[in-house]
């Protein structure tokens, strides 16, 4: 019962955007404002994308709380946080344009919390020198997605929801000009013909056991781009957020916003010590408080006191928590304590952190106005991804663009909190402009090769005809177990090699997966079609992690615990040519001298 061409309906648009989170929607608004027909495809309902879960805020040097803030300070914080592996031009554009993008959200109806003089309030966050995160309590992502969602709705953007893309399609000369996917509700295939494709598919966390990410984060965009021949960079750089819930087990990994620490929350071990003072790295020593008194004073006075080590960049805090637990100073359920109860009044906690209050009360039975939270690292964010041109977000394959988490380079080896939401709107807009230019310069009609579509469609339905195979749920659980154990927060060569072997076996097993029932809204089949992305992504992360024989940002090697200055000058680039998966170091873009000077002493 093979799928043939006549089984597939097709739709034509100027621009196809895969993903309806912040980046996808901002891109769509841009292409639509240029008068281009625009389709947005998403795996869930419209408005449920992972952006909705972002809590703490959106980083932009508006200078509303600290007028001395500016793009250069934001740029410097971002690149130092990224351990100098960032694409400097992306980091510069991001720092320069983020304030305008925040104000634009306000002009589209977003209601950020206010300062006393009626401007947008900004909160402190890890790695940011000044209070810089515009926010709405601890539900900033929800505000952002609703604002963009209703703006997009008002502009007549076509949304294809609960639709999964299986493969990007190229024409005979290799230009990306379409995609094949299926509707979850019916299981029917749909083919898009388009002049440009923007990937805005977000993250990858579902390949790990404990993650803050939802079922959607299966690395689809990373896998689609790789298969289409695009260059992928920094795939080893995965962020483990230091504070995920650890109990109950069923919510292990669920995010606890860094805003808790931004608003005064502190980390303690089982001996009631503020252990972060023992983990201040050389790079941040000069600007980090070394006594509790100074750290506490900093919250109200950034000029005479240095910042608390509780707000070191995420990679530092996650490693510190990991070490404390390993040393036997963890909390009862294998995390550490995060205390806000003794730092703010109950009313302040409920006002500033309402969803954290509810989340712990309803899911863990913990009242955070009276008790400390138990937290530990959780797989959170992918710094690596599609290599793009900073100005246009064009990938290395013509017709393909990428923005947001699926793109690499912006965050280097570690992302600062708050820089993701700003990344989405800054580069979502730029990807929209880049794709619009490409579409406007496109002559003729897109001619995606039908054989590619049929191959992808028939691969997708294979589990229905394969009898007595194994369950996709088992395969997923085994992959998650493998990545959690062997490609987690602390890595070694032997474990990574073992992981690569396991992934190869899992890829074989993927051909022997069976699915029962019909194609109509069948979650086991849907999972079976996500597994190829998850495996491809996992392989890229593991290969990258083997090659980067140093510790940098989110990538920590127990067998190479220090950064290697030479490796700090290269991206590891992975690509597929003629079926061969290659990986090699390539030099970073050279930063101009005037920006380099920002990293010298005195700044």
């Amino acid at each position: 019962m093979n799928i043939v061409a006549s089984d597939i309906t097709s739709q034509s648009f100027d621009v196809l955007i895969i993903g309806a989170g912040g980046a996808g929607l901002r891109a769509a608004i841009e292409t639509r404002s240029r008068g281009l027909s625009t389709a947005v495809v998403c795996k869930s309902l419209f408005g449920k994308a992972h952006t909705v879960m972002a809590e703490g805020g959106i980083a932009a040097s508006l200078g509303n709380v600290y007028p001395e803030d500016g793009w250069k300070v934001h740029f410097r914080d971002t690149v130092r946080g990224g351990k100098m592996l960032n694409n400097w031009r992306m980091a510069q554009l991001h720092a320069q344009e983020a304030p305008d993008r925040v104000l634009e959200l306000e002009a589209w109806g977003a209601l950020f919390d206010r300062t006393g003089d009626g401007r947008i309030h900004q909160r402190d966050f890890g790695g940011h020198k000044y209070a810089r995160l515009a926010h709405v309590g601890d539900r900033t992502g929800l505000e952002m997605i609703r604002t963009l969602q209703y703006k997009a709705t008002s502009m007549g953007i076509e949304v294809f929801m609960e639709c999964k893309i299986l493969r990007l399609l190229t024409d005979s000369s290799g230009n990306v000009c379409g995609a094949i996917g299926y509707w979850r509700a019916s299981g029917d295939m749909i083919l898009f013909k388009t002049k440009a494709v923007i990937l805005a598919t977000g993250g990858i966390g579902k390949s790990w056991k404990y993650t803050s990410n939802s079922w959607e984060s299966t690395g689809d965009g990373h896998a689609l781009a790789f298969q289409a021949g695009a260059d992928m960079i920094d795939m080893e750089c995965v962020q483990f957020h230091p504070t995920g819930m650890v109990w109950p087990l069923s919510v292990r990994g669920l995010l606890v916003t860094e805003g808790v620490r931004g608003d005064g929350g502190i980390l303690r071990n089982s001996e009631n010590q503020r252990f972060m003072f023992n983990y201040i790295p050389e790079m941040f020593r000069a600007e980090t408080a070394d006594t509790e008194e100074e750290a506490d004073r900093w919250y109200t006075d950034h000029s005479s006191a240095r910042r608390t080590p509780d707000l070191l960049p995420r990679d530092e805090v996650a490693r510190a928590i990991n070490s404390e637990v390993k040393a036997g100073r963890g909390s009862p359920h294998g995390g550490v304590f995060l205390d806000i109860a003794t730092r703010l009044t109950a009313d302040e906690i409920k006002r500033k952190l309402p969803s954290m209050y509810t989340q712990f009360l309803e899911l863990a039975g913990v009242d955070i106005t009276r008790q400390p939270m138990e937290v530990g690292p959780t797989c959170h964010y992918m710094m690596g991804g599609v290599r793009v041109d900073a100005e246009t977000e064009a990938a290395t394959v013509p017709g393909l663009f990428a923005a947001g988490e699926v793109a690499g380079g912006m965050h280097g080896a570690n992302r600062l909190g708050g820089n993701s939401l700003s990344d989405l709107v800054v580069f979502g807009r730029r990807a929209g402009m880049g794709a619009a230019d490409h579409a406007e310069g496109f002559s003729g009609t897109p001619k995606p090769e039908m054989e590619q579509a049929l191959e992808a469609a028939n691969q997708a339905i294979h589990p229905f005809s394969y009898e007595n195979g194994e369950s996709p749920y088992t395969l997923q659980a085994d992959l998650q177990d493998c990545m959690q154990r062997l490609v987690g927060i602390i890595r070694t060569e032997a474990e990574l090699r073992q992981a690569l072997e396991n992934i190869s076996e899992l890829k074989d097993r993927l051909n022997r997966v069976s699915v029962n029932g019909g194609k109509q809204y069948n979650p086991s089949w849907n999972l079976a079609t996500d597994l190829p992305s998850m495996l491809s992504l996992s392989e890229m992360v593991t290969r990258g992690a083997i090659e980067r024989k140093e510790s940098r940002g989110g990538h920590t090697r127990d067998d190479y615990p220090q950064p290697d200055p030479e490796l700090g000058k290269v991206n590891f680039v992975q690509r597929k040519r003629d079926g061969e998966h290659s990986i090699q170091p390539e030099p970073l873009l050279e930063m101009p001298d005037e920006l380099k000077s920002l990293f010298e002493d005195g700044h």
Partner: protein
Amino acid sequence: MTEVTMNIWRGDSNGGNFEQYKLERVEGEVVLDVVHRIQATLAPDLACRWNCKAGKCGSCSAEIDGKPSLMCMTRMDTLPDDTITITPMKTFPIIKDLVTDVSFNYVMARQIPPFTPGEPEPDGTYRMQQVDIDRAQEFHKCIECFLCQDVCHVIRDHEVNKLYYAGPRFFVKLASLEMHPLDTVDRRALMREYLGLGFCNITKCCTEVCPEHIKITDNAIIPLKERVVDASYDPIAWLGRKIRRKSKMTAQEAYELAPARVAPTSLDGIPATAVED
């Protein structure tokens, strides 16, 4: 370890029935965890929606022992019985099992004229005081789980009313626009004539099921009703309009500003055939 029986509606638009699944209870689980365990072990094709598993996205709406709820925020240990019944939301057409077709809501979203701000300050930015946005921020907490739409008897019991009635979710949306300090569009006549605000007879069922604890009836719908009445009948409303930043619009004028690319029906000159209880 005790056992629990999950009584789950299985079927599609052609009909269906209840299937029972027996599982061990696990400490700390929510209903959605149990549904996921059923998928992984007993019924791989059992359909349900979910995303964030933290009460933030509003995807996993269903009726648990008859009460419209988020499956991800309903702790198993808060449900006293050893048999728990889960059914899909009743107000929307079934797609499969616990998944319903909620496109009514996306169609309705297009009937609402979008946010339209006035002129910014000379520096290009806007000023708003926190006290002036507190109420609208309450409405912005909405996660679009559509449980309020599900429970609202105006459409739950009378399918035909979906042509004439935006429902609590969109009254909350309209209230957030009405009370947004920067917005300039007057949607009051539109609410009265096209969007069915009058059909709500304030039974507060929507407020009871709202997982974000938005006081939908008291803080959104009743104030909207008052403003609509003021706009239509109040002999001294002209005084209010003098100090109001929005100039008065007819329903048709406001509707022309709406995206409304896919209207549920022609909304022009709707005959008054909706059903009232």
